[in-house]
């Protein structure tokens, strides 16, 4: 069994210094790993990222993050990523990592992902270059997910995204903006190769609980959705039962 703490959409600003740290007080005792699902800063500023790592500095369990669209806004994702990595946070952008927790291994593949929509209203890479360019990062993420999951031989396999690969966890958001919140293009490789749990953020008015089209558990851990310091999940080795 592993215990996962997860949260996204912290949107930390310069006014957030010192406010988050107390909320993580019990985290080292409650979880084996912390996953951060993007939009960790509000403007993608180095100053915000530096405050974030201060807020995370009491956490001794492994911390794994993906960036979100806000982290790309000002100084670019490389600057934010660098500050996080210097503080020991593993940052995934269409990449994977394997952690050993006790006698069990956990594989995590992650990335920001992108939009495109779902199912019958999913955008196709057709026509103008702008449309095809729009979908490029969605397909790049999907390819990375498929590649990593097909090779991952760990006890547990997790997917960490900012944008959603499943429509169910968007419920509550205006349907008109679904194409900007995620895409089933990223859900397909997850269902094809399998995973134990998918975590994402970005959809502030969405729903915590859902599944991919193929039935893999998806959790929207956006802070405005969970309204708690972080969500906690225990991933069991056996019974496929969801329980509160």
């Amino acid at each position, binding site marked *: 069994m592993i*215990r996962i*703490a997860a949260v996204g959409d912290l*949107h930390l*600003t310069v*006014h*957030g210094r010192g*406010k988050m740290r107390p*909320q993580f007080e*019990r985290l080292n005792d*409650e979880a084996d790993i912390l996953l951060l699902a993007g939009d960790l800063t*509000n*403007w993608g500023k180095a100053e915000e990222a530096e405050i974030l790592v201060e807020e995370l500095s009491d956490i001794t369990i492994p911390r794994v993050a993906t960036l979100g669209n806000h982290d790309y806004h000002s100084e670019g994702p490389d600057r934010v990523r660098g500050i996080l990595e210097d503080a020991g946070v593993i940052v995934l952008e269409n990449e994977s990592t394997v952690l050993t927790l006790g006698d069990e291994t956990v594989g995590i593949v992650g990335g920001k992902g992108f939009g495109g929509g779902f199912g019958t209203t999913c955008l196709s890479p057709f026509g103008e270059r702008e449309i095809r360019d729009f979908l490029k990062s969605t397909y790049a993420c999907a390819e990375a997910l498929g590649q990593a999951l097909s090779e991952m031989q760990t006890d*547990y*396999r997790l997917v960490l995204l900012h944008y959603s690969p499943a429509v169910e966890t968007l419920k509550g958001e205006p349907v008109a903006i679904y194409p900007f919140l995620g895409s089933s293009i990223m859900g397909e490789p997850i*269902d*094809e*190769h*399998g*995973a*134990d*749990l998918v975590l994402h953020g970005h959809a*502030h*008015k969405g729903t915590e609980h859902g599944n991919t089209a*193929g*039935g*893999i*558990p998806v959790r929207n851990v956006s*802070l*405005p959705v969970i*309204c*708690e*310091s*972080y*969500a*906690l*999940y*225990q*991933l*069991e*080795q*056996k*019974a*496929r*039962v*969801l*329980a*509160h």
Partner: protein
Amino acid sequence: MEPVYLVTKVRQKLATDPRVGLTDLLIHIPEAGHVVVSGFVSTAEQRDAIVAALQEMPEISRVSNRTQVREVHPTHQSEIIGKGKPGGPS
């Protein structure tokens, strides 16, 4: 200005103003020049900045700020998730 265009301008202002930076607030224009903003913000500073930012827009004469600072509670419950088949669920 038609309300649909003013809503767009207000949304852009609240997203890009460095004091605010919020993209998911609800905007309502009940009458010409009157903007009602609702939704959640992270800090009191952000809440106050909404009015300051919108008062800079010449199209707006009145701002009703109905936003609330979001309360984040301590985590109190863990969900148990059964492990799926290694090759996927189907």
